[in-house]
């Protein structure tokens, strides 16, 4: 009932907005200049524009928001919450939580039926766990310009059992970045060719990646007096290492011709983590440790960002952060870094035939992982206000402005975000870097062969078990095969405990995204 009233109200707003210029041109003169009051270049008309939100009156009501720590996602949340409070008169409370504690902070109130938060920001990875507790995005919001503009990939990520549960406000994926100034340097090229007999090009396979990393490790190749190293990767066990590991495995284990599951065989729910493709990926991950900087085998995401972004390492792969850090205005290696797709492999395991297949072109799947996202709690008494807030957070004016602040961590997710000119004009990147950035991201979005996160109930259990196994192999206390065999055993036990049918039903959503093309 209330939602129908709200929808009709929204429709009225849209109608009146559309009608305004015709009916009362003079009204425009009275519209405040939002671009002067807020850090945006111009208000973009729409359901959740500054003007539309300004017209809402939520005084006397309170909106509770939980979000990530400052600055990544947390800082824009705080910024837009303050704006929203100012425009609508609502009281908006925001709590910032580090990633490691975010899950339990949200899950305990969910499971105990406590309506603690109205709007929530969290990694889309957890949708498999959170979906019973979220309110679907109402149609009025799904039809906004911003939502219509989502790329198919991120619309898919937001959807669960054909219902849109997540309010998309960020797009994430893993890709590789490297020091173009070193790769383009003739002295370095000569040195590399002399040592390996091969021309120095950005790696297309993990074998090449490891080889290049080894050559460029342990000596000062940028002339700053400090030794440099080959690769910075996220290796700290209970940080986001599982994600780095999946990136390293995808090329060997995600065969473009095999459908029906990457983590499990969807039919039998038999874990695939100890199949030869995964084991090869782990072997390469372990081998790369020799080319990491001191302490590099215990790097969290923050360390990876500082290492590559600070110019210590030649190559790295994970989310945007390290690349963005290197591209900051005061960064000494600004515009000397390049993004490209994750390396892959020419040898790919085919689990249907039980054999390795050889590809002429390296198999380089895209890995769409994580992605901050937002949602409204099903138990919230303020769903109208909460959706308005999320819609406002992600309106075109705010998104455009947020994407210009690297530390905010808001990355491209709409069709309109893949314009090289934006990065050139607004962020001052060179045309080459801007073009490569847009092409890399677009390439992942359009890659027919992709891996998505294991978004099923208990993903935390699966991933912490996987990370523990990988860590054992990295520390040398188990061979890669042993370690992953143990992980597979644990995964079977988890499937038994939670229920094979439950997990299959959830995993089908993930496989559907992967097999869509």
């Amino acid at each position: 009932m209330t939602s129908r009233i709200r929808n009709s109200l929204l429709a009225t707003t849209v109608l009146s907005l559309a009608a305004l210029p015709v009916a009362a041109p003079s009204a425009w003169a009275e519209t405040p200049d939002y671009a002067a009051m807020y850090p945006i270049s111009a208000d973009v008309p729409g359901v959740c524009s500054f003007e539309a939100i300004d017209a809402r009156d939520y005084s006397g009501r309170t909106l509770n928001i939980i979000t990530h720590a400052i600055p990544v996602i947390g800082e824009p949340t705080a910024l837009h919450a303050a704006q929203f409070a100012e425009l609508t008169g609502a009281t908006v409370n925001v709590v910032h939580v580090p990633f490691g504690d975010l899950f339990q902070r949200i899950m305990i109130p969910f499971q105990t039926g406590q309506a603690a938060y109205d709007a929530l920001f969290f990694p889309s990875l957890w949708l498999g766990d959170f979906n019973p507790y979220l309110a679907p995005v109402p149609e009025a919001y799904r039809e906004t310009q911003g939502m219509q503009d989502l790329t198919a990939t991120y619309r898919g990520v937001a959807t669960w059992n054909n219902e849109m549960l997540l309010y998309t406000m960020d797009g994430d994926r893993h890709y590789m970045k490297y020091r173009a100034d070193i790769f383009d340097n003739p002295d370095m090229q000569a040195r590399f060719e002399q040592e390996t007999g091969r021309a120095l090009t950005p790696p297309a396979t993990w074998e090449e990646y490891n080889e290049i990393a080894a050559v460029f490790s342990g000596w000062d190749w940028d002339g700053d007096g400090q030794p440099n190293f080959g690769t910075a990767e996220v290796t700290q066990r209970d940080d986001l290492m599982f994600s780095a590991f999946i990136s390293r495995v995808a090329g060997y284990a995600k065969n473009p011709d095999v459908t029906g599951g990457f983590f499990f065989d969807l039919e039998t729910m038999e874990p695939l983590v100890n199949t030869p493709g995964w084991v090869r990926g782990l072997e390469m991950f372990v081998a790369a440790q020799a080319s990491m900087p001191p302490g590099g085998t215990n790097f969290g995401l923050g360390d990876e960002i500082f290492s590559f972004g600070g110019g210590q390492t030649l190559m790295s792969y994970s989310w945007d952060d390290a690349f963005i850090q290197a591209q900051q205005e005061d960064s000494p290696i600004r515009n000397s870094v390049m993004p490209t797709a994750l390396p892959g492999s020419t040898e790919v395991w085919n689990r249907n035939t039980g054999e390795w297949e050889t590809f002429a072109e390296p198999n380089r799947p895209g890995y769409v992982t994580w992605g901050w996202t937002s949602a409204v709690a099903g138990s919230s008494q303020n769903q109208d206000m909460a959706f308005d807030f999320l819609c406002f957070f992600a309106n075109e004016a705010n998104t455009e402005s947020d994407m210009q602040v690297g530390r905010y961590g808001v990355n491209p997710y709409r069709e309109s975000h893949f314009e090289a000119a934006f990065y050139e004009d607004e962020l001052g990147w060179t045309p080459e870097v801007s073009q490569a950035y847009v092409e890399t991201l677009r390439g992942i979005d359009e890659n027919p062969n992709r891996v998505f996160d294991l978004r099923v109930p208990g993903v935390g259990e699966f991933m912490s078990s996987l990370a523990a196994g990988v860590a054992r192999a990295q520390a040398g206390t188990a061979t890669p095969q042993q370690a992953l065999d143990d992980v597979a055993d644990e995964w079977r036990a988890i499937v038994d405990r939670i229920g094979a049918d439950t997990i299959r039903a959830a995993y089908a959503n993930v496989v559907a995204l992967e097999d869509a093309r």
Partner: protein
Amino acid sequence: MYRQKYLFLTPGLIALVAIILFPLLFTIRVSFSGWDVYNPGLSWKGGQNFSRLMADSRYWAALGRLSVMAVGTVLIQYVLGFALALLVWRDVIARRFFRVLFLVPMMTTPVIMSVIWRTIFHESLGPLNPIIRGLGLPGVPWLSDPVWAFVAVMLVEIWQWTPFMFLLLLAGLLSLPSEPYLAARIDGAGPVRTFFSVTFPGLAAISVGAIVIRLIEASKILDTVYVMTSGGPGESTETASYYIYIRGLRDFQIGYSAALSIIYLVIMIVALTIIAKLLVRFLVRPAP
């Protein structure tokens, strides 16, 4: 008249029992349930969690590691705390300054100091390895080598909690009566003999209490491990308390982590009782 004695004990006891009773009983009940991320609530799984626990080699290894770490750090803290207390006990320049200074680490929030320490141990950006190299020694793989990572975690614990021992022992020293020292001097006892026949016995009772409390607290180590190593490399710094945290709040296996905790509680109570008895026997009543 002695009836009033209950007026002293009962308010505190009742308050404590009232606050703790429900959580304790609830935890025991949860340990028999399959509460996890997908099935919240108090289902009945019998002893499943406990039989799984018995076969969980990672838990038992973590428990073994924890006892090495807890006993090791507490003993080192005790020895260092004792030494520092003796040093600033009597005539020392700027005595009061050093006393305050030595207390400060205990005042800091462990979860925040762990982050600071992680930056100190950082092998490329941290200040520690440059200093060590300046002394002509090779850099140390602080957090990426199993043994060194264990040492690094212990170092932070020692830094933070030696002041606890220092304070209690210093207060004890300051309260020692002076007569036995006179007697010892008349007997012609040297400083070493005086220490073992007068000072140490005088502090034995305090020592037992301080060691037991520190063992309890040291066993709960969590923040330091989480921030600095996440239990790695491999599982080399994974302690029981950290493992319970991973199972409980990261994996959200509430039922299983409750079972782990109950067993932990039982083991700790038994171990501490034995340790306290042994300490009392060997420290408090040594041969005169």
